[in-house]
């Protein structure tokens, strides 16, 4: 007679076999049997959050900074619905999450029982897949399948809903052997012919550009190394999306900066004028393309992606290559070495004119701003933060809004997995709990959440989590008392009608920090900023840094709309002062 385990025990056996070390969660009636078993499984550390959304974002931060799937454990009903925002966020940004939720006992399902909700129904559109486990004998294979689905192909969140009676029932458990290569639903589907065709296009191109995204980061650190090798060996310019930051060194001379709505002038112009665009692991998001009809009209487009449904979804491409980024780049590099060993030399001449043009765009210095000696400019604050933390292998998370764009523009990343931001869903309140998750994964690293005062208040309660587990996260708030990006759009598009975008009552963040049991620091003038930042870095406890910045500053450059990439709106230093009018208003 083999040993029988309860459903709750099986949950932990599975997590153990999957190598899970941390779970982020919050107990409740329908998951109590699982919480009851926690004490018997010492390999797992449970991080008690203050709200299930925080558990989800913390698991995301953990996953994105470590490359491992993030696990969260929530109760039925409100526990599950609170996790929905984080699951959707992970779905949009392709973050592997496994959410285990409790459910009311099977005989009560469908009776509107206390804390019952249709969890699998609610989370169906925001997960890769979900399961309601009604039979204890299905539990083991379901959880292992859940990890497989979350981590293979294009990663994403999954949910396993376990009714309370199933957590008590007993079944056998057979030790799970992780296959070396999981056979996910999506395999590499490219052939050598595709690679040859790409190299043919590359050798013909006189105005090429690499446009790379989060797929490079998701493919693992090896993919970023390979990307560097590929870009160096070709001499082509490269731009990355918001999610791709860090996959290529931010200070490298071939790097044009981020592209898109608030991307650099040179990146967007190069995208518009190029004759060959090589998209590696990006998805032609609408913040990138602007008006589709006028997006990069003269280029041949190549799209390398692991998800076949990303190809031709928004932009029609000439050469699709379906496969894992690391493996595709390996094949490209190998073929170049074999077929065109002196590719760089022969190509340098051909693209030198292109580089001249790019240098001209670059000289505009589009991220520039007018600094001040009286008030702290938000861009200046991020530049100083970067200068003072760049030697420390710092991990940065952000909230959503102007501060996020400024961080993307002015903080330069040199390695992948160092930049965690909510791009697809744009979830205000992401950064603080994400920082908690990052710090859990990297206890000895400096983790900074570059925040806005409005965003950070949405999940501020997680400071309490940081304090409980002595996670010394730094919340660097660029406080302008406005929902800055909303204010900016209202200024530019809605005749300065600042409807409800000013927060007339804000907490005193320094006192708030003290109330939570952490450290509060405030900077009000540019000349004290450096000292205060250094003080923050040197504090080995969680810090809320209240950086009072210019309230009117806008985020430039931006693509005003109805306009293609080559007609960007530049900052106040720009003489031309393009006005956004009429049709242009719709795209911003």
């Amino acid at each position, binding site marked *: 007679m083999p040993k029988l385990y309860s459903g709750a025990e099986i949950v932990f056996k599975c997590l153990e076999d999957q190598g899970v070390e941390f779970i982020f969660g919050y107990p409740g009636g329908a998951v109590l049997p699982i919480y009851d078993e926690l004490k018997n499984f010492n390999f797992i550390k449970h991080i008690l959050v203050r709200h299930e959304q925080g558990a989800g974002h913390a698991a995301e931060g953990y996953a994105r900074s470590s490359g491992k799937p993030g696990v969260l454990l929530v109760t039925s009903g409100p526990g599950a619905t609170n996790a929905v925002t984080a699951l959707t966020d992970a779905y949009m940004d392709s973050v592997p999450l496994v959410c285990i939720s409790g459910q009311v006992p099977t005989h009560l399902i469908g009776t509107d029982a206390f804390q019952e909700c249709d969890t699998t129904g609610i989370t169906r559109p925001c997960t890769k897949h979900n399961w309601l486990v009604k039979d204890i004998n299905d539990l083991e294979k379901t959880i292992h399948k859940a990890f497989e689905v979350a981590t293979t192909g294009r990663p994403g969140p999954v949910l396993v809903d376990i009714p309370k009676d199933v957590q008590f029932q007993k079944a056998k458990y057979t030790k799970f052997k992780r296959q070396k290569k999981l056979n996910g639903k999506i395999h590499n589907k490219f052939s050598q012919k595709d690679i040859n065709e790409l190299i043919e296009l590359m050798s013909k191109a006189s105005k090429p550009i690499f446009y790379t995204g989060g797929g490079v980061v998701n493919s693992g650190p090896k993919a970023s190394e390979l990307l560097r090798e590929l870009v160096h060996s070709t001499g082509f310019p490269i731009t990355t999306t918001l999610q791709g930051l860090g996959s290529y060194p931010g200070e490298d001379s071939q790097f044009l900066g981020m592209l898109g709505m608030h991307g650099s002038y040179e990146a967007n112009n190069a995208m518009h004028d190029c004759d060959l665009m090589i998209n590696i692991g990006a998805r032609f998001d609408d913040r990138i393309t602007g008006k589709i009809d006028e997006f990069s009209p003269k280029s041949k487009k190549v799209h390398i992606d692991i*998800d076949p*449904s990303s190809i031709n979804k928004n932009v029609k491409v000439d050469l699709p290559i379906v496969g894992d980024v690391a493996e595709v780049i390996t094949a490209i590099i190998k073929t170049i070495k074999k077929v065109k060993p002196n590719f760089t030399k022969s190509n340098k001449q051909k693209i030198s004119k292109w580089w001249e043009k790019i240098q001209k765009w670059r000289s505009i210095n589009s991220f520039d701003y007018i600094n001040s000696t009286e008030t702290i400019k938000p861009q200046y604050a991020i530049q100083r933060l970067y200068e003072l933390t760049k030697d420390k292998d710092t991990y940065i998370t952000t909230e959503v809004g102007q501060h996020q764009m400024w961080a993307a523009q002015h903080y330069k990343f040199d390695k992948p997995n160092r930049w965690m931001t909510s791009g697809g869903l744009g979830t205000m309140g992401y950064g603080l709990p994400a920082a908690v998750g990052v710090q859990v994964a990297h206890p000895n690293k400096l983790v900074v959440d570059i925040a806005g005062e409005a965003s950070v208040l949405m999940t501020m309660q997680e400071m309490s989590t940081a304090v409980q587990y002595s996670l010394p996260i730094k919340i660097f708030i660029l406080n302008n008392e406005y929902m800055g990006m909303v204010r900016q759009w209202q200024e530019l598009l809605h005749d300065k009608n600042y409807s409800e975008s000013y927060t007339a009552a804000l907490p005193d963040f320094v006192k708030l920090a003290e109330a939570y049991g952490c450290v509060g620091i405030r900077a009000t003038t540019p000349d004290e900023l450096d000292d205060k930042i250094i003080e923050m870095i040197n504090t080995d406890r969680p810090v809320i840094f209240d950086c009072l910045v210019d309230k009117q500053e806008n985020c430039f450059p931006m693509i005003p709309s109805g306009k293609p990439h080559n007609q960007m709106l530049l900052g106040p230093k720009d003489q031309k002062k393009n006005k956004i009018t009429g049709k242009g208003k*719709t795209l911003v």
Partner: protein
Amino acid sequence: MANSKSAYSTPGKQGKLDTHIIVVWVDNEAGVLARVVGLFSGRGYNIESLAVAEIDSKLNISRITIVTTGTPQVIEQIKLQLKKLVPVHKVADFKREDKKVIFKEMALFKVVGNNSKKDKALKACKKYNPVILDKTKNSYVIQITALRREIDTMSKNLKKFGLVSVSRTGAVAMTRGSDTFR
């Protein structure tokens, strides 16, 4: 739309819409139809008709036949998105005009009236293999199998012969000849 002050782009030109029949082989498990249908509603795709039933009770496979309209790009997305669903095994796609594929729908008509009317109704259905499933002194229930537009026409034409109720299925499809879709 042109004057809307939104954070999003204005719609581009819409391409030509085609009607396609999409056949999906899925594991017959709880919620699978909701996943397929939810994908259509969630992404704004259109469903004209739907037919679903288990076809292999041993392997637990169901076959879902969906008639949909969309631009070539949208149809391509529908197929790729369907293939990503975990319980989906394979996806086939046929154009409505495709001569190599048979499409059939079934309809039940209830006609109420005197003998002359009932017989006229039956005669009108002659082309579509009518079967009388139920008859009483003053009514018939007639079953026909035909194409969608033929059933549309019949439902209109039978009105004058005392048609009181129509029930119809979605289309089912199968390729002609000895080949099967793999």
